[in-house]
C-alpha cells in the first residue's frame, strides 16, 4: 500500500484492467501530490505568500495512436474506476492488442536532483531573510533602482506511475525558484530589469552567494539599457551570446524536433532523419541528466528513465524527441521526453534541458571581431515559432551593434526574425563557451513544464533585425 496515495499494487492492476475493458493496448496511471509555496516581497516587505496543494490521478488508455484520458482528484476507488472507464472509451473494438516497443534505454535508479534537505520540512519564515537580503544587495549596487519585486517559490511533487506492463515507478521532484523584477529610473527614463535562478534542489540552494549572483545579474547592463536605442533595421549578421540565447534554440529548432509534430507531418523536419541540416561539428542535445537542472527528470511522466538525447550529431539530424506513442510509431526507443504539466494532462513529447555543445571557433570576442556590421544579442524574451513554416520571432531584451569588429551602440526593444532550419544552416561559427542558463524557463506547448536551455556563442550569417 502506497501511503501517499493510499492505493495498493493490486488495486492499480485492477484500474488498468478497467481501462482496458473495452480493448486498447496500453493503460497507465499517473498519481501526483504536489505542494507548492510562494513568498512575495514588494515595497520592501514580504507581505504576501501562500501554499497550494494539487492531488490526483490521471488515467491514460492507448488504442493504437489514439488516446483516451481522464483523471480523478479523489483517491476514492470508485472515482478512480470511473476515470479509467472514461479513458477506456477511446477503444471501441473490444480487441486487446499487445503493446510492443523497442527496449527502453537506461536502467538503475537515477538521481539527478539529490536534495540535501526537504522544502516541506522547513518553515517558510526561515526563507524570508533571503528575499530581504536580495533587495538590500540590489539597492546597494545601484541607486537607480526604484522598485523591487522578488519572489521565492518552491515545490515538491511526489509522483507514482504504473502501467499495463506492471511497471511501477516513483519519483520525488523538488523545484526551487527565485526571481526578481526591477523598475529603474534615470532622469525621466524608466527601464525594467529581470533575473532569476531555478534548480531541482532542496532549500540548501538558498545561499548568500546565490543571492549575490542574482543581485549582480539583475542590475548588470543597466547603464547600457539606459543608453540603448533602437537601431536601423535590416538583414545582418547576428552573434548570439552564450547562455540565455539558448531559448532561441529551444523555440526555433527544438519544437520542430518533437516527434508528435513529425509523426503528424507538421514539422519542417518531418522525414529528414539522417540528413545534414547544419555544418559539421554542431551537436544539439536535449538532456534530462544535468544534476540539479530545472529541466532534469529522473524519469519522464511515462516512467521512462531520463536520458541525454542527441538530436543533431555533427550537423546531421539523428533523433526526434519521443514519448511512448511516437517511439512506437517510428519504431525506436522512447527518449524519455513524455512529460506533462500535472495529472490533469496526458503526456506529450516535451524538451528538458536543450543546448548546443561547445564548438571550436574560439571565443565570443573572436566571433564579434569577425563581424564588420551586425548585432550582438545576449537576452531574449517572448519567442514564438511556427512549427510548419519554421519561422520565428524573438524580442531582444539587450544587445549591441557590432561595427568593424567592436561592440558599439547598445540596442533594445527590437525583434529578430528568421527561419529555424535556415538559421541553423546559416551558423558560421560556434565558440567554445557553452553556458547553461539557470533561469525560470517554462515551456508552454499546450501545457506548462519547467525546462532550461543553453548555447555557446554562435555567429549566424543572416537574420532580420527590426528597428527604426
Amino acid at each position, binding site marked *: 500500500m502506497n501511503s501517499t496515495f493510499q492505493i495498493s499494487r493490486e488495486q492499480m492492476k485492477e484500474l488498468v484492467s478497467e481501462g482496458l475493458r473495452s480493448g486498447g493496448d496500453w493503460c497507465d496511471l499517473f498519481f501526483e501530490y504536489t505542494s507548492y509555496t510562494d513568498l512575495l516581497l514588494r515595497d520592501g516587505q514580504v*507581505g*504576501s505568500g501562500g501554499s497550494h496543494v494539487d492531488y490526483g490521478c490521471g488515467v491514460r488508455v492507448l488504442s493504437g495512436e489514439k488516446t*483516451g484520458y481522464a483523471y480523478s482528484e479523489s483517491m476514492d476507488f470508485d472515482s478512480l474506476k470511473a476515470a479509467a472507464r472514461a479513458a477506456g472509451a477511446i477503444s471501441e473494438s473490444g480487441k486487446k492488442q499487445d503493446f510492443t516497443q523497442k527496449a527502453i534505454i537506461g536502467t538503475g535508479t537515477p538521481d539527478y536532483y539529490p536534495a540535501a534537505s526537504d522544502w516541506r520540512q522547513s518553515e517558510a*519564515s526561515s526563507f524570508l531573510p533571503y528575499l530581504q537580503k536580495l533587495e538590500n544587495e540590489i539597492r546597494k549596487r545601484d541607486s537607480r533602482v526604484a522598485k523591487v519585486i522578488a519572489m521565492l517559490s518552491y515545490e515538491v511533487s511526489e509522483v507514482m506511475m504504473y502501467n499495463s506492463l506492471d511497471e511501477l515507478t516513483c519519483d520525488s521532484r523538488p523545484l526551487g525558484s527565485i526571481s526578481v523584477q526591477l523598475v529603474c*529610473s534615470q532622469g525621466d527614463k524608466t527601464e525594467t530589469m529581470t533575473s532569476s535562478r531555478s534548480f531541482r534542489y532542496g532549500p540548501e540552494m538558498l545561499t548568500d552567494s546565490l543571492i549575490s549572483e542574482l543581485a549582480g545579474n539583475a542590475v548588470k547592463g543597466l547603464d547600457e539599457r539606459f543608453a540603448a536605442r533602437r537601431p536601423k533595421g535590416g538583414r545582418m549578421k547576428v552573434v548570439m551570446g552564450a547562455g540565455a540565447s539558448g531559448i532561441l534554440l529551444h523555440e526555433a529548432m527544438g519544437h520542430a524536433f518533437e516527434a508528435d509534430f513529425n509523426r503528424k507531418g507538421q514539422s519542417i523536419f518531418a522525414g529528414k532523419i539522417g540528413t545534414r541540416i547544419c555544418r559539421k561539428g554542431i551537436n544539439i542535445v536535449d538532456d534530462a541528466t544535468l544534476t540539479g537542472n530545472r529541466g532534469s527528470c529522473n524519469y519522464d511522466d511515462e516512467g521512462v528513465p531520463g536520458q541525454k538525447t542527441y538530436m543533431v550529431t555533427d550537423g546531421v539530424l539523428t533523433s526526434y524527441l519521443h514519448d511512448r506513442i511516437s517511439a512506437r510509431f517510428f519504431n525506436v526507443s522512447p527518449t524519455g521526453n513524455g512529460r506533462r504539466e500535472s495529472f490533469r494532462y496526458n503526456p506529450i513529447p516535451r524538451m528538458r534541458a536543450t543546448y548546443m555543445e561547445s564548438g571550436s571557433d574560439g571565443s565570443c570576442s573572436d566571433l564579434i571581431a569577425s563581424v564588420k556590421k551586425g548585432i550582438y544579442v545576449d537576452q531574449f524574451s517572448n519567442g514564438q515559432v511556427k512549427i510548419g*513554416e519554421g519561422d520565428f520571432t524573438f524580442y531582444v531584451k539587450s544587445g549591441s551593434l557590432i561595427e568593424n569588429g567592436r561592440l558599439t551602440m547598445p540596442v533594445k526593444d527590437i525583434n529578430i*526574425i528568421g527561419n529555424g532550419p535556415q538559421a541553423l544552416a546559416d551558423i558560421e561559427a560556434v565558440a567554445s563557451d557553452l553556458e547553461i542558463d539557470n533561469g525560470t524557463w517554462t515551456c508552454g506547448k499546450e501545457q506548462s513544464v519547467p525546462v532550461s536551455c543553453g548555447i555557446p556563442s554562435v555567429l549566424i550569417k543572416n537574420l*532580420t533585425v*527590426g528597428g527604426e
Partner: protein
Amino acid sequence: MELADFCLKTAKDKGATKARVTFSLSTEDLIATLNGKIDRITHCSDCSVSIALFVDGRFGSFSTNRLDHNSLEEFIGKSVNMTRMLEPDRFRDLPDPSRTEKGAVTGDELKLYDKEYLQMSPQRRKEIALKCSVFPSDGLVSEEGEYSDSVFETYVADTNGLRCLHRETSFDYGVEVTIEDAAGDKYSGYWWTSDSHFDGFHPECCGMRALENARAQIGAEAVESGKYNMVIDSEVSSKVVSPILKAINAYSLQQKNSFLTDSLGKRIFPEGVTLVDDARLEGQTGSKLFDSEGVSTPSDTIIDKGVIKKYFVNTYMSGKTGMEATVEEATRPHLLPWPAKGLDRDDILKLCGDGILVTEFNGGNSNSATGNFSYGIEGFLFKNGKIVKPVSGMLVTGNFISLWNSLIACGDDNRSCKSKLIPTLAFSNVDFSG
C-alpha cells in the same frame, strides 16, 4: 456552499480575522480529431478552493483540491500559521460590503448556462467533431480539430457576508491545418469558434476557414521596409489594446511600470478611441457580475473620446495608493466603432487604400514602462483597397501612444465569442521592416 461556510468558520476558529473563499468547479469533455478520425478523448472534472486569509494584519493566499473536512481543517490551520509568519501589511483587506455584488444568487442571472449541455452524449460529441473535418483536401498534410463542451462554476464568499455565484457553459471548436505547396514548403492555418449556448454554436465552417488561411499564405515573403498604413484584423487586434489595459491597472501604476502614469482624466488618445466595459450583458461570452474579490462589475467607460476615465484599482491597491477603488480589471472591454458604425475589414481596407493588413502576430514584446513595442507579423500587402500578396517575416515597431494617435478607423466587426471585443483597426504611417 456548505463547504464555503465550513472553510470560513474554520479560518476564523483557527485565528483569521477575515477570510474569503473561492470555489471553482468545472467539467469538460473533449474530442480531438486527427485527419478526420478520432485521435483523443478527454474527460476532466475539477473542484478546488482558494482561500485568502487576513490574520493579525497579515495576508496569505492558499489553495487545495483536497476537500474533505479533515484535510481542509488541517490545511486551513497550517495556512493560518504560515500567514502569521509573513510581514504585516495594513492595506490588505476585504472589499467594503457596499461595493460587492448582491445580485449573483442563482449563478445564471446573465443567462450563460445552457441546459442543452446536459444532453451532450459521447456519441453526439464524436459526431460534432467528425462532421467538422475537411480532411482530405487539396494539399492538406495534417488537420487537428478539437471539440469540447464544458460547464464552469465560481462561488465566492467572505466573512463580511459576500455570497456570489457565477455559472456558464461553453461549446468550443478549433482546428489547425498544415498544408504543403508544390515546392514542399509548409503553411499552417487556424480558426475557432465558441458560444455559451449550443444553438449559437456553428463550428461547421471552421475547417474551411483554417484551410483558406493556410492557402492564402502560400508564397508569403517580406516586402520592402518602410512606413505603411497598418490594418489589424479583428482576430488579433486586441494585441494593441491589452497593453493599455495593463498600463492603467494600479499594480503597474504603483510599481512605476506603466507608460500611462498620471493619465487619469487626461486626453492621451485621439477622439476616435472610446473603450467601454460591457461586463453585464446577458448571454454574452465573458460577461460576469463580479470580479475575483466579489466586487460588482458596473458597465462603464474606460476611455471616452481619447480621455482616460478609469484606472483598475482593487481593494489592496486602493489602500496602498490612496486611489478610489474600482474593479480588478476590465471584464469585457469593447472598443466602439469610429468614425462610423458598420465598417468591416473590407470597408477599412478601401478607406486606407494601400498598406499592410496584419492577420497574425508572431512573437515580439512591448516595454510596459515606455510603451515601445516590436512584433513579428504576418498578413497581406493591399493596394487600392484590395489584397495583392501575402506577407511574412516582417516586424512592426513603434510606441503605443504614437500608434494610437495615428488611428484611421475602428471597425464594427468584433467577434462576440471573444472576451475582448476589439474590431478591425487601422493606423497610418507605421514602421515595418523585413
